[in-house]
């Protein structure tokens, strides 16, 4: 909503300048997003008179003008065909930045003749696209005075960003009313005098809606004005409209635009001769079409309201008029329409058709239901004034809905909700200034004015009082501190996420945050991409599927980095992956990957493989668990991993994570170079662990006796896993065997085909006394037997 300062002052008696108006408006909730001040922007441009204009000696199409700038006479070379002696134009001296040409003017020689400045076109000043010739100012423009004033642009324009609830401020008058309530000035009387009709309206209005849908249009008023002469509107009106960005069209149309902007009352003027019979508001018929004023044909449906004559729809109600019944310069008889359209329906119609208009802007926020006829009267008065003619009586169908809402209000609510201690008299004063009627003493009864359809209850009234009195005057008040020392607030799950994050960063991974949606083709590779996980309205086809895994985004990012020459990346993200498109069907996963060969180094660095991924996965699991978790490892993983080089961490049927080298097809699909290994740990699946009654640690069992280590090498079938051997050895004598480490794995010469050798170091920790050789020998034998039993392996000789 744009408001020029001088227009505002038509309704508000104030000496405030644009900046103070903007400040106060913002403070009461009418946020001024910007002040456009052409006078300041165009301060370098002055009114100048062309003394003479001779043809350029070297160019037929150029003229050499002598120009009186008010301070001196300068020579200017000009290409405009309309440059002539005696005219007044807009002069820019050298050094001026010309916005329309995006250049700073210098002193130049044009075809051998010096030019010291420029006579400007509207396009050069970015006033319009007009570039046929230079601006020709009125004869009364004062040479040497600022050009902005002579152009009628000296008026600063405020751009107010209205919140959707403030239908009452979609007009200059409404904004003035709010500012007056905030004591910025005094609101001038806005009363509209009725214009008496001289004949009955030849066109009647009616409301034709099925029962239950009457609210689509509750009131339809109109009148005919005949015998007018429609031409350009007066200069002052054109200036007003242009200042707020509206294009003057013709007197009748300009009047309707003026009333909409000035009073927030949208109207429509039909050329009566193009209408057939009476006018009605009705729902559109399915498939009904209308050629609108924007030159486009719209197909309507029965959810939309139209204004129609006996033949066809003539306007999309509250949104846009029809081209065929529109007013032109030739129009002599008009039918003026002023109606009340349902905000929701109007908004929906505008959205469905993709039309943004000044009428829609006002109707969808809610117009003043009591101003339907007054708006019509105001428009009539202006049309008669500008175009002559004779007005009919007003015809009205229906009437304003609702109104007169009574709100029981206790002024204590201002303190209770707003934290502001104000005397009742001040509260009542503010409400009355805003147009509310207030009665009662202890318990007030407040009736909102007709233009405040947004005010419904005591909380709304508190808001009115607080915003006008000043939010800055609400004293900050400390909240109670329920615990002397703050209590921990994180849930176990939130702590796990935090631990996992810091552990991964400590391991050298860079944390990333990716969108929760990925291209469907990527989702398909990771078990997703089904219809239920598709967005209905993605921002692009590349972001159309909820991610079934965090890995595809990480892979795509690693590839992007590689494309920039950053070949080795350690990336992770902790976030949601989605199991379906339903609320809550998401799990938190910590996923990471090492991509690409590490930079060459004289000390060899380990390239990403199944074992770096396993170490990463176990590190996350360890960091994210309150107690150590020994999750068995299964030798297979999800389909996106290398089938022979990946594993699953599982507790019973519950999968806690995957790790391993990525499947070569996945690596190829993302166009990654070098080896890629990754992991996914499902944070939600990690058991919470027992909460202990105290924080005390268990007793430390540290033997004074020397531990001893024995090595065993087994020959095993190649398919036997290290895990089986370690488990069997570990279980052979639990009381003594403290740990079992694999220190060699060998296949090849000396070992039969299909077999492998696996060497373990077993650490024995005597607890009570030193072991005898016989006892050690007995344990060794138990280990050999246990491994043999579990795996069929034999001691390597």
């Amino acid at each position, binding site marked *: 909503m744009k408001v020029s300062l001088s227009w505002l002052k038509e309704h508000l008696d104030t000496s405030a300048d644009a900046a103070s108006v903007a400040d106060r408006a913002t*403070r009461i*909730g009418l*946020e001024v997003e910007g002040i456009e001040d052409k006078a300041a922007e165009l301060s370098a441009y002055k009114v100048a008179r062309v003394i003479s204009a001779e043809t350029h000696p070297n160019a037929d199409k150029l003229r050499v003008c002598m120009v009186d700038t008010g301070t001196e006479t300068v020579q200017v070379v000009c290409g405009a065909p309309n440059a002539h002696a005696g005219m007044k134009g807009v002069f820019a001296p050298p050094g001026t930045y010309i916005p329309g040409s995006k250049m700073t003017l210098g002193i130049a020689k044009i075809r051998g003749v010096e030019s010291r400045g420029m006579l400007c076109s509207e396009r050069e000043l970015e006033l319009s696209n007009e570039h046929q010739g230079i601006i020709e100012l009125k004869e009364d423009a004062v040479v040497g005075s600022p050009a902005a004033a002579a152009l009628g642009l000296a008026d600063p324009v405020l751009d107010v960003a209205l*919140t*959707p609830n403030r239908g009452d401020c979609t007009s200059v008058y409404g904004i003035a009313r709010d500012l007056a309530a905030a004591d910025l000035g005094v609101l001038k009387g806005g009363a509209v005098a009725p214009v008496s009709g001289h004949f009955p309206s030849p066109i009647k209005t009616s409301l034709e809606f099925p029962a239950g849908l009457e609210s689509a249009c509750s009131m339809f008023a109109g009148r005919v004005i005949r015998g007018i002469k429609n031409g350009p509107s007066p200069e002052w009106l054109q200036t007003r409209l242009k200042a707020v960005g509206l294009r003057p069209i013709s007197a009748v149309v300009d009047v309707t635009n003026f009333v909409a902007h000035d009073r927030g009352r949208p109207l429509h003027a039909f050329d009566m001769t193009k209408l057939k019979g009476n006018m009605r508001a009705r729902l559109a018929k399915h498939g009904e079409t209308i050629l609108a004023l924007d030159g486009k044909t719209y197909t309507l449906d029965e959810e939309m309201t139209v204004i129609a004559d006996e033949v066809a729809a003539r306007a999309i109600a509250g949104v846009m008029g029809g081209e065929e019944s529109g007013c032109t310069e030739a129009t002599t008889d008009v039918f003026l329409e002023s109606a009340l359209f349902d905000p*929701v329906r109007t*908004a*929906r119609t505008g959205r469905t058709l993709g039309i943004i208009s000044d009428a829609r802007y006002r109707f*969808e926020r809610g117009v003043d239901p009591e101003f339907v006829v007054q708006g019509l009267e105001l428009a009539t008065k202006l049309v008669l004034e500008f175009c002559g003619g004779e007005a009919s009586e007003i015809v009205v169908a229906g009437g304003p809905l609702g109104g007169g809402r009574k709100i029981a209000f206790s002024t204590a609510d201002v303190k*209770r*909700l*707003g*934290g*502001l201690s104000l005397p009742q008299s001040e509260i009542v004063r503010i409400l009355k200034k805003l147009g509310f009627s207030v009665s009662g003493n202890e318990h007030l009864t407040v009736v909102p004015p007709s233009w405040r359809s947004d005010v419904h209850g005591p909380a*709304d009234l*508190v*808001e009115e009082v*607080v*915003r006008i009195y000043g*939010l*800055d005057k*609400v*004293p900050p*008040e400390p*909240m109670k*501190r329920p615990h002397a020392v703050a*209590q921990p*607030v*994180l849930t176990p799950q*939130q702590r796990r996420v935090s631990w996992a*994050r*810091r552990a*991964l*960063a*400590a391991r050298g*991974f*860079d*944390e*990333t*945050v990716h*969108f929760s949606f990925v291209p469907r083709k990527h989702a398909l590779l990771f078990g997703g991409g089904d219809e239920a996980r*598709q*967005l*209905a*309205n*993605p*921002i692009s086809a590349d972001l159309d599927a*909820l991610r079934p895994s965090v890995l595809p985004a990480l892979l795509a*990012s690693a590839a992007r*980095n590689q494309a920039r020459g950053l070949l080795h990346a*350690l990336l992770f993200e*902790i976030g*949601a992956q989605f199991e379906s*498109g*339903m*609320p*809550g*069907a998401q799990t938190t996963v910590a996923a990471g990957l090492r991509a690409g060969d590490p930079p060459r*180094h*004289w000390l060899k660095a380990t390239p990403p493989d199944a074992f770096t991924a396993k170490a990463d996965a176990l590190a996350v699991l360890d960091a994210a668990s309150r107690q150590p978790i020994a999750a068995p490892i299964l030798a297979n993983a999800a389909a996106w991993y290398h089938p022979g080089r990946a594993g699953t961490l599982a507790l019973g049927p519950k999968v806690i994570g995957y790790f391993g080298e990525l499947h070569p097809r996945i690596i190829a699909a993302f166009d990654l170079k070098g080896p890629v290994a990754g992991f996914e740990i499902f944070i939600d699946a990690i058991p919470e662990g027992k909460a202990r009654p105290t924080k005390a640690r268990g007793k430390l069992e540290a033997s004074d006796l020397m531990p001893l280590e024995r090595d065993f090498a087994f020959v095993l079938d190649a398919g036997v896993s290290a895990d089986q051997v370690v488990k069997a050895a570990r279980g052979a004598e639990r009381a003594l065997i403290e740990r079992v480490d694999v220190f060699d794995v060998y296949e090849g010469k000396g070992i039969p085909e299909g077999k492998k050798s696996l060497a373990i170091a077993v650490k024995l920790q005597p607890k009570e006394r030193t072991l005898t050789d016989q006892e050690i020998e007995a344990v060794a034998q138990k280990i050999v037997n246990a491994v043999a039993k579990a795996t069929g392996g034999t001691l390597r000789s």
Partner: protein
Amino acid sequence: MTDIEELGAGLTAAIAAAKDERALEELRVSALGKKGSIAELLKTLGSMTPDERKANGPKFNGLRDRVSDAIAARKKALEDVSLDARLQSERVDVTLPVHDAPRGTVHPVSQVKDEMIAIFADLDFKVAEGPDVETDDYNFTKLNIPPEHPARQMHDTFYMKPQADGSVPLLRTHTSPVQVRTMLSVKPPIRIIAPGRTYRCDSDATHSPMFHQVEGLVIDEETHLGHLKWVLEEFLKAFFEVPKVGMRLRPSYFPFTEPSVEVDIQCDRSGGQIKFGEGSDWLEIAGAGMVNPRVLEMCGIDPNAYQGYAFGLGIDRLAMLKYGIPDLRPFFESDLRWLKHFGFSALDIPTLDGGVSR
């Protein structure tokens, strides 16, 4: 006598001349070994008279000790030489580079979230969470944004395709549905913050289809606008680590709060760096207000007994302001150079005792 001295002098010279440990060992055997010259000499004591023994014993033993000491000293000297030689041969080029210590990073969004949690935890706010995919009811209707309400236009919403049960879930446009979930499941008093991802179909230089918000909600019997003002001011001071902060509330409109405000923070952007608590610029950083009685009602809380406030802060925006990150979009582009530059060390855990940032 002279025999002994000669023997001694000869051995001493030989010891001093011994070239290596092996030669020295041979000398030791030849002098002190079982059949060595000094051993032989000592054996003669046995056949001497007590007087002779008394006279010669100390001399012979003295000789033995001198030779033994000389051998030890020479041995030490030889060892030193050979160790020096070995050490010289073991010299490495210590300027050769080693593997860098792992230097990963925590994303600014996570870091700032942790900072906010540390501050709000001290104010007794618990951390609540909710799903990214939401129902229309929780994202809009229960927040007093009924279908067709113009406020829905403020939220360009991503919708899912219809689900098996016919429902059309959406991606939450704000973290406010966590308010709804909390009020429906917890009895007042309530003090929560709810950080999380939010989505709007909006994408240009300053908007991203996904961004992060933190929601705040307090419901009890007495909390009013003054408390909201206090909490935001205290939070902002702690977060930006400045002794004072200029804060301005502007009346605004959100269907779920009444009164509604927008919160601006005073700053100085002259000189390329942003400073808080001074200057003439105002930056919008939050939307807030008293929870609309209609919302309380729809969430099963008696608006006559309880009241409170809600606020929403942009996490990405706060990160940009505090840490001078110029653009939003690179947050989600995972350029390693950006991550390394704007990311935080694993050890930068925000605490109130150590300061929320390093």
